[in-house]
């Protein structure tokens, strides 16, 4: 549905986006994840035909964003970053305005405005001036605008910024419900958002895509080592006992672990799974084994790893 091929955008000397390629299948939600200034907004602005790429190409539903921009624009709904809306208008008038620009007739507009207002929970502010609405309401008016014409593709730039936790949860469920019939690209710098709403994730850092996969696969493939949490009681040194065990590469004290005894994180080579040997060794020593469980690497850790490694390369 969305194809991006070695897209590059240069502002003078500065490369905001370099050689970015990815695809989004029909009905899929892609999370576009990256720290601020990584090139997320620039990429989305090229996809929505707001600006042209320096090189590379992108197409939506088979239409090129540069050559067939009108066809592309009529098929997408866009929520720009920071949701710029006409402050003097009411949400109802605003939605009628964009509906008219998209060629919707009056009965259609009335019906759709009613629908999207209910979905985004803005029905009680439809006739207040947008400038007087809270950030959370404005954000949802923007989302309603993007959904108004029931577009095939939705491009949402930081859709949950500025919302309270309850609104965030509501917005995420609205976005999740869009999947299947709609193709969605959602940019965010918030990690849980991706694992909660997206089927696939592309991580962008300094203008480059550094990883793309499902959130789970990313966690599995990116893990450089497996980790096991071990809790013991007793005074002996766990480090000394476990270091000779096959597969174990490091033993670290886990200071965040409260409760009884002492907590440790044992790192081991991928695929070695030394858990039975760890158990045996600890039980055979003078320490009491209280707990032993595998730790999964979180998306957050992968994100930090990927984006910091990248910075290191550049330096």
């Amino acid at each position, binding site marked *: 549905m969305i194809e991006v091929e070695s897209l590059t*955008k240069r502002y003078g000397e500065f490369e905001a986006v370099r050689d970015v390629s990815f695809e989004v299948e029909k009905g899929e939600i892609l999370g576009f994840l990256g720290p601020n200034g990584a090139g997320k907004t620039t990429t989305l*602005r090229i996809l*929505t*035909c*707001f*600006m*042209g*790429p*320096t*090189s590379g190409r992108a197409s939506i539903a088979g239409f090129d964003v*540069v050559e067939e*921009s*009108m066809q592309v*624009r*009529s098929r*997408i709904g*866009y929520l*720009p970053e*920071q949701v*710029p*809306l*006409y*402050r*003097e*208008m009411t949400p109802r008038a605003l939605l009628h*305005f*964009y509906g*008219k*620009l*998209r*060629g919707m007739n009056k009965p259609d507009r009335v019906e759709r405005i009613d629908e999207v207002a209910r979905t985004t929970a803005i029905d009680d502010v439809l006739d207040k001036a947008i400038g007087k609405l809270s950030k959370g309401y404005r954000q949802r008016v923007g989302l309603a*605008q993007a959904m108004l014409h029931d577009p095939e593709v939705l491009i949402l730039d930081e859709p949950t910024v500025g919302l309270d936790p309850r609104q965030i949860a509501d917005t995420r469920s609205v976005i999740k419900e869009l999947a299947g019939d709609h193709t969605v690209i959602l940019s965010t710098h918030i990690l849980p958002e991706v694992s909660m709403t997206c089927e696939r994730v592309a991580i962008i850092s300094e203008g480059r895509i550094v990883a793309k996969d499902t959130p789970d696969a990313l966690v599995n493939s990116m893990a450089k080592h497996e980790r096991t949490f071990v809790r013991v009681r007793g005074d002996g040194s766990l480090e000394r006992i476990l270091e000779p065990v096959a597969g174990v590469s490091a033993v670290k004290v886990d200071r965040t672990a409260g409760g009884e005894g002492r907590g440790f994180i044992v790192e081991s080579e991928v695929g070695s799974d030394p858990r039975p040997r760890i158990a045996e060794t600890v039980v055979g020593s003078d320490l009491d084994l209280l707990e032993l469980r595998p730790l999964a690497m979180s998306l957050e850790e992968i994100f930090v790893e990927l984006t910091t490694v990248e910075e290191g390369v550049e330096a």
Partner: protein
Amino acid sequence: MRVFVIAGRELKALFLSPIAYIVLALYFGIMGLVWLIVTAQQVQVEYRLMAHELHVFALFFIPAISMRALADERRTRTLELLVTQPVRDWEIVVGKWLACMGLYVVMLLGSLQFWAHLHVWSEGSMDDLPVLSAYLGLVLVGMMYLAIGTFFSSITENQVVAALLTFTVIVAFYFVRALGSVGTGELQDILMQVSTTYHFDEFARGIVDTGHIVYFALGTFLFLFMSVRTLESRSWG
């Protein structure tokens, strides 16, 4: 028509902001004063005298009408949402310009009251046709000045900058004929042909000539075209 959807929204926005009211109040206030002064000095008011004054007023008021057209969309970043709708850039530019024309025409219609006064005072001896041609000239010169204003509004996000640049350029178009008096022959002729005053004065004298209409139409087209190109430039790699 998307042009009219955009023009309609813009016109409503003008009237929802204080700008339209300040412009209208100042325009009618100052015009009324000038009218008082003119009628106190002369018993027989020639209507075309008022036409010149209305042209001068346009120099001051047009920058205030057109300054927000695109500059405000840039400043508030609503332009991003507008240009990503399935709307052509020329439709946005022409829509904005039409909305400005709407407010300008409201001002002109208000000034018709002076004609009405004159008409009544002259007890039917007044020739109304020059008034009509003068108003045609005012509409045409307004079209061109507002196109200039739309252009300068498209290159900046600062409304004050847009208004000042517009004022500078339209005043230049107004005065360039006077510059011609220092030159001779061909130069004088060129400066005269470029100036808006030369073409406008013919209308004020009651002469409707296709050549003058073409001048204003071309000027309007040129500046609207430049505005469209400015808007398009965002997508040049």
